[in-house]
């Protein structure tokens, strides 16, 4: 599959050079890339799921390493892995159900197919059901050994009886790949339409004469506000410009063309204005499992000001932004420093900057971070495409999208290779 490798390398280069901006674009392209990876992966007769998972993992690892700060890549890789597992399980349960109807004697075969040679069909069915169902404490306890075993035990278990039912299996393997790709298409669809799903909820949150503050630019926020406007709500928006990228200018322009009362303010005036604001609505870069938000730089300040004045701080985030990781020192580790030229004109300060050439350390440093970490206690509400959620509920949302085995993608389990 050389052509896939070319695609992957191309995408990795783009990620490395930070050519792709915005988590939505990144996640969509990641999903598309993984789709082509999956479609090009030749699946063995046995253990199709394991093979797919390995392939996706190998690519995902490289993608994540290319831009570890762009959490959306990792999210999508994990989502795809989860989809493969789910599809595999649903196929298995379907087969179990079919077998259970026809005869009980095929018990052994069914178990083999599901890569659990020693388990009875009933247990497998239970396991399958439990994974499709949202996990509860009980299923978590039951599930852990099973799902952990899926990719690994299969290879050993599959060999013994693989030859007997090869024809059936090939059809099934095609079915699995097909299902996975179907699901991936759905995921891509979800990512592209998550704006609309979020924007649909706008009228529930914005009332007449509301004053809304936002910082920087986010397409989700734009759609959200415009959706409320279309529903004949009249409200005014304060847009902080979001130095040093000044995306706020762009947002203000877009809002004005859509007919919203817009006031552009400097970032420094946020504290002054927030006392007259009813709600802060912002986009996010990523939402961590603890409910913290990795957001465009400056939002922590806004969130603090909002908290001070008891203004609700609402974060709009598509489900592709939900990251199953818990942040550790996110201000530093999940941040990225951009070029100082956005802050200082090199030409003007060139005489101050060449101290570094001598023995002494340079006198002038310029810090230009990209992201801010907003701790969960400052967030009032998340609005995702599945509805509004409390920050404390995010960990649970994540369980819907990711399986616990995929949380660590980078480190390949030693047994897998």
């Amino acid at each position, binding site marked *: 599959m050389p052509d896939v490798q070319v695609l992957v390398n191309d995408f990795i280069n783009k990620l490395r050079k930070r050519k792709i901006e915005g988590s939505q674009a990144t996640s969509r392209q990641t999903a598309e890339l993984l789709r082509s990876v999956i479609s090009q992966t030749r699946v063995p007769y046995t253990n199709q799921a394991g093979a797919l998972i390995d392939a996706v993992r190998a690519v995902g690892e490289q993608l994540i390493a290319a831009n570890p700060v762009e959490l959306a890549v990792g999210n999508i890789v994990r989502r795809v892995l989860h989809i493969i597992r789910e599809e595999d399980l649903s196929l298995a349960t379907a087969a179990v159900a079919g077998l259970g109807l026809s005869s009980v004697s095929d018990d052994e075969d069914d178990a083999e197919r599901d890569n659990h040679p020693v388990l009875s069909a009933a247990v497998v069915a239970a396991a399958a059901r439990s994974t499709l169902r949202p996990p509860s404490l009980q299923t978590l306890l039951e599930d852990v050994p099973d799902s952990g075993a899926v990719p690994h035990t299969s290879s050993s278990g599959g060999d013994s009886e693989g030859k007997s039912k090869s024809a059936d299996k090939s059809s099934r393997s095609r079915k699995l790949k097909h299902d996975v790709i179907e699901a991936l298409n759905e995921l891509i669809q979800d990512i592209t339409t998550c704006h609309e799903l979020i924007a649909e909820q706008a009228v529930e949150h914005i009332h007449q004469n509301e004053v809304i503050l936002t910082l920087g630019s986010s397409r989700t926020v734009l759609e959200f506000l415009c959706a409320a406007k279309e529903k004949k709500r009249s409200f005014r928006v304060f847009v902080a410009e979001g*130095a040093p990228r000044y995306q706020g200018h762009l947002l203000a322009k877009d809002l004005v063309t859509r007919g919203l009362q817009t006031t552009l303010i400097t970032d420094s005036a946020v504290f002054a204005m927030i006392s*007259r604001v009813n709600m802060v609505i912002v986009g996010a870069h990523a939402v961590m499992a603890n409910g913290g938000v990795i957001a465009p730089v400056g939002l922590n300040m806004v969130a603090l000001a909002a908290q001070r004045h008891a203004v609700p701080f609402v974060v709009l985030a598509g489900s592709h932004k939900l990251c199953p990781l818990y942040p550790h020192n996110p201000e530093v580790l999940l941040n990225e420093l951009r070029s100082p030229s956005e802050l200082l004109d090199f030409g003007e300060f060139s005489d101050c900057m060449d101290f570094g050439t001598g023995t002494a350390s340079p*006198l*002038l440093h310029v810090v230009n971070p990209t992201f*801010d970490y907003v701790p969960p206690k400052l967030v009032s509400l998340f609005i995702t495409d599945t509805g509004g959620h409390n920050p404390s509920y995010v960990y649970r949302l994540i369980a819907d999208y990711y399986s616990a085995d995929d949380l660590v993608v980078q480190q390949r389990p030693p047994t897998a290779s």
Partner: protein
Amino acid sequence: MEARRASRTVSDPKVRHVGFFTPDPNPQPGWNPLASDTPVSNSLSPVMIPPPRQPSDRTAAVPVPETGIRRQTGADQVPVGSYNPSESLLGSSPAPSSPSSRVGLVDGEFSEESNGWFRRSESGKYASSLPDTMVDRAPENSASAAPVLESKKSVEATGKGGKAVVEEQNEVQSSSMPLKEKTTKAERRALQEAQRAAKASGKEGNKSAAVSQGAAPVKPVKQPSQKKDGPPVSVSVSVVSFDKKGGDRPPEKERKKDVPAPRMQFDDKSRVQKAKKHAVVKQTEARNRVELFRHLPQYEHGTQLPDLESKFFQLDPVHPAIYKVGLQYLAGDISGGNARCIAMLQAFKEAIEDYSTPQEKTLARDLTAKISSYVSFFIECRPLSIGMGNAIRSLKTRITDLPLTLSESEAKAALCSDIEHFINEKIILADKVIVRHAVTKIRDGDVLLTYGSSCVVEMILLYAHEMGKQFRVVVVDSRPKLEGQALLRRLVAKGLSCTYSHINALSYVMHEVTKVFLGAASVLSNGTVYSRVGTASVAMVANAFHVPVLICCEAYKFHERVQLDSICFNELGDPDAIAKVSGRTDVNYLNNWANKENLQLLNLMYDATPSDYISMIVTDYGMIPPTSVPVIVREYRRDHVFI
């Protein structure tokens, strides 16, 4: 220190020396409270009938309403306080070790003050219940005819006496302290305090006397007793309460003066029209104004300057020096509270030097009117800062207080020297004092954050660097002024190690910061710091990261106004500055924003930082918590009058 404090708690209500206070440089051995009476009575404004402290004394020093003399020549004449400006200006620099103790004093003050608050209502009781009725002054008092009047006077006398005693003790105790100037301030303040107390309590005295006239002669007697032996606690309490009373309720007339005139509200159409008629600067109102800020003036920028420049040679009533400074304000060539204030005062000085009184007019009135017209010209160019307002206020008081006997040239010379004094003492010297204080808070290894460009903070940083302290500076900046870049350049040129960032990155840089130094345009009496927009955000983030925030502000910028938000009073800058991002040609989304009906750009200039974000305010009177601002405002406001 210990001894001093102990004695203070017993006898001294004067803890309110927040800053430095020193004894009379040349204490006269025979000095007694009575002697201090003369300047008191002299310094009273003619309207106030100076209540005699004791009848005999009073007759000797009949209050002549020529208050100005004493004020004007105060420098060389004042017998008691011997306020010697040259000495205070040049001679002494504050001991750098003092700040901590100062802060301690402030604390002390607060506790005592609250005491005073509590006791206030009871003070009458305390005073009248004092047992030792009879001491030296009783006979004189009894000689007086009208009991009601007497009670008033005597009450006042006690207040004053108490003060005086305290004064005396202070001198004895702390004669080793440097800094002459503050002593006299303290004294003057004390005297005025006493007068006010007298007035305030006079009213009550009237009342109480009406109820029970028998009590009247008792009161005055308390004072000598206190003077003689170690003062009983109750006495000191009553003294405290007395002057608290004075401090808290100034007499009607003064109070009226204190309340700042309501500011011009620009949503009031008729008044705006009226104001426009007199305007020198031709202004067109900006389009697309922000609804929330209708009450603030906002004009189209760019049109006024050429217009004004063309008018430069049509010499209308505005003096050329004033005109020049006004133009500089308008063009933004002079910015920063201190620079603007100094430029304004120097322009006033030039104008006063060239001034000649027209026929059939008095200097005091005509010059005040002139100054007022200059001030309104300045306001047209750019709204005044609060520090400038204070400076103008003190200058006007000086003019009205000029004695009529003075010839014109003398009066002008006096005013000019007063202006010089104000600049030197309230701004330049105050900055030096602040630097000395603040430097004690900088330690090796510190990472200091500052926002925008404050000249005091810059002086502090440079001074600390000169002292060889090892620290790093984080300069945080924000659009549209980007004043931090200029500061950064100056600091780096001096060899300081700097980090530069923008205000959005605050949360990122705040992790390593150990202290935040901020300047202020004004400190309001509820502790709110009114400063360059963004200061509040910096203070808030610092507070969230538990980093102490130190505000550096000269006391002449303190104001008794209160403000809760940044909206009721503010200044609006040029909105075009927001649409254009300097040095970034790629950000051009809003090039023709004015045509868009729905879009407004808001360029706020200031914001109000709530006092709970502020750990400390470093001012020329010492380092104080924000809660002590009203104390400084109340106690030292009178000083501005004296320039």
